[in-house]
């Protein structure tokens, strides 16, 4: 009976450690280093022959380096006779707007949702959640936002960009009424945070009492931290698919929603052959 072995690439050791702790396992020993000519070298430090291997890698920071490390680690496990290799990629790189990742693969893909963890966070951290409004900062996120709003039994609104003439800059138009309500902006990823900050301004000027922002993947590159520090949102909550420790030091408004239990439970269920669809509707404790 194969055992679970979890390996982590250097992109997000912290999350891998949390997952391993939840599964009461040690992270697999492996040495990743870069030669002076920038070539990556990976050496697996323990036997994986006949084992069920899970390799954690998140598309953050130096994406090309992380990707090559992941590929090299998968190759190393394969030629070391691992029984099954599963890649755990919380934030899938190069897939900015391509949600339908599953169809591009010939292998099974389990696309997990952070929605449940987000709902739990809202109920625990926002006291007036029963009277709030969920807002999407662009028209594409309407489906996501209505799903959350339905589960909380609250209303939703959305912001869309309107361009009057071709050369004019977009204008943000709020569809829905947020007056005297707490508004919660929900989006899947935030890179430079320009959209989120403009949306927050718009909501406050339309009469919202408080604005929160919840994002699944907080990439936060470039001027993002400055934008968040200057924004009028109360808090910006992101999941830990991408490591946030450094950014939290510079920006007290960032809060982290831990999703390691979802991943750990998914790994456990995949390993023992149980259904993973339970995770689409429940958050493990």
């Amino acid at each position, binding site marked *: 009976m194969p055992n679970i072995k979890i390996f982590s690439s250097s992109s997000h050791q912290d999350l891998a450690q949390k997952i391993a702790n939840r599964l009461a396992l040690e992270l697999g020993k492996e040495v990743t280093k870069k030669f002076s000519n920038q*070539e990556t070298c990976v050496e*697996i430090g323990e036997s994986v022959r006949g084992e069920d291997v899970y390799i954690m890698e998140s598309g953050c920071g130096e994406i090309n380096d992380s990707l090559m490390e992941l590929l090299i680690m998968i190759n190393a496990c394969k030629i070391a006779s691992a029984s099954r290799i599963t890649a755990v990629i919380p934030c899938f790189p190069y897939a900015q707007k391509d949600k339908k990742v599953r169809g591009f693969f010939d292998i099974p893909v389990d696309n997990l949702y952070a929605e449940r963890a987000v709902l739990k966070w809202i109920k625990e951290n926002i006291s007036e959640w029963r009277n709030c409004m969920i807002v999407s900062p662009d028209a594409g996120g309407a489906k996501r936002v209505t799903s959350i709003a339905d589960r909380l039994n609250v209303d939703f609104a959305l912001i869309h960009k309107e361009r009057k003439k071709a050369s004019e800059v977009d204008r943000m138009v709020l569809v829905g009424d947020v007056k005297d309500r707490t508004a919660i902006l929900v989006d899947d990823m935030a890179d430079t945070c320009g959209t989120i900050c403009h949306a927050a301004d718009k909501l406050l000027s339309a009469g919202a009492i408080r604005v929160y922002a919840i994002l699944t993947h907080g990439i936060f590159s470039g001027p993002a931290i400055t934008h968040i520090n200057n924004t009028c949102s109360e808090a910006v909550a992101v999941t830990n698919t991408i490591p946030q420790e450094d950014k939290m030091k510079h920006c007290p408004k960032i809060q982290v929603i831990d999703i390691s239990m979802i991943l750990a439970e998914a790994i456990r269920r995949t390993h023992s052959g149980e259904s993973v669809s339970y995770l689409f509707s429940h958050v493990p404790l």
Partner: protein
Amino acid sequence: MFCVAPPESETKMNVTKGGLVLFSANSNSSCMELSKKIAEDVNTTIMELLIMVYACKTSCAKSIIGVIPYFPYSKQCKMRKRGSIVSKLLASMMCKAGLTHLITMDLHQKEIQGFFNIPVDNLRASPFLLQYIQEEIPDYRNAVIVAKSPASAKRAQSFAERLRLGIAVIHGEAQDAESDLVDGRHSPPMVRSAAAIHPSLEIPMLIPKEKPPITVVGDVGGRIAIIVDDIIDDVDSFLAAAETLKERGAYKIFVMATHGLLSSDAPRLIEESAIDEVVVTNTIPHEIQKLQCPKIKTVDISMILSEAIRRIHNGESMSYLFRNIGVDD
């Protein structure tokens, strides 16, 4: 609409200036050549190459030829301990992305050609280096070709044969950690339980090799020493070899290598060492290293690459480019 910029209009294509030379707009049946140099960040360059190749493939290019003078990860072509054979991984990725032909130069191990299922042309830089020796080193007839470790003896031998010179081989302690003799399968497995191994099947313990102190096999006294190798990256082994050769009486020391990676502080170390000149080809850009160390000289190999591209495009034979190559080169 477009094709390869025909070499008649520009006599040499300088493949290393400007990294990316992309010929073509949107073409249905044309031949595309993508030149790639390997820059500081290897992984990003590889991803860029793969993305470009795939973009060309999905835009219906008839054939996509990668011109990759220095093939990356070529030192990771064997399994070491529990590592990965990255060259094979890269070869699979490139073939899958849509590459139909590969032109490269002086592969670290010729077996890497076998990792691809597309035609690979492994051109040689040795004719250019030999020409440099004959033209730029005034009394080259008094030189000895030196192999800095027994592994590169074959290459030294093939150079020496063509120049009608003698060879010398350096053997000893200063071997780099990733020598070709290390193979993962020699590492003894962990002993789980003594019962697992039948008592009568005693597997003999592998005796660790003892390295003798550095010796030079061959006579370098009163001669010019020319160390030849394919890649010069971490210069420690070259520095040690140069010291030894100096002690044995060599009055000038040259290092000739095809690929001058010269990473981290190699230029500084070379400047301070006993090496007189380091000659590399322009497969890898090293302008910065040249500024730091005037001992580094460049040999231009762009003409062989442009000739290869022209011949492939016209469907001509490539054997002319391999005519003076020895078996071991």
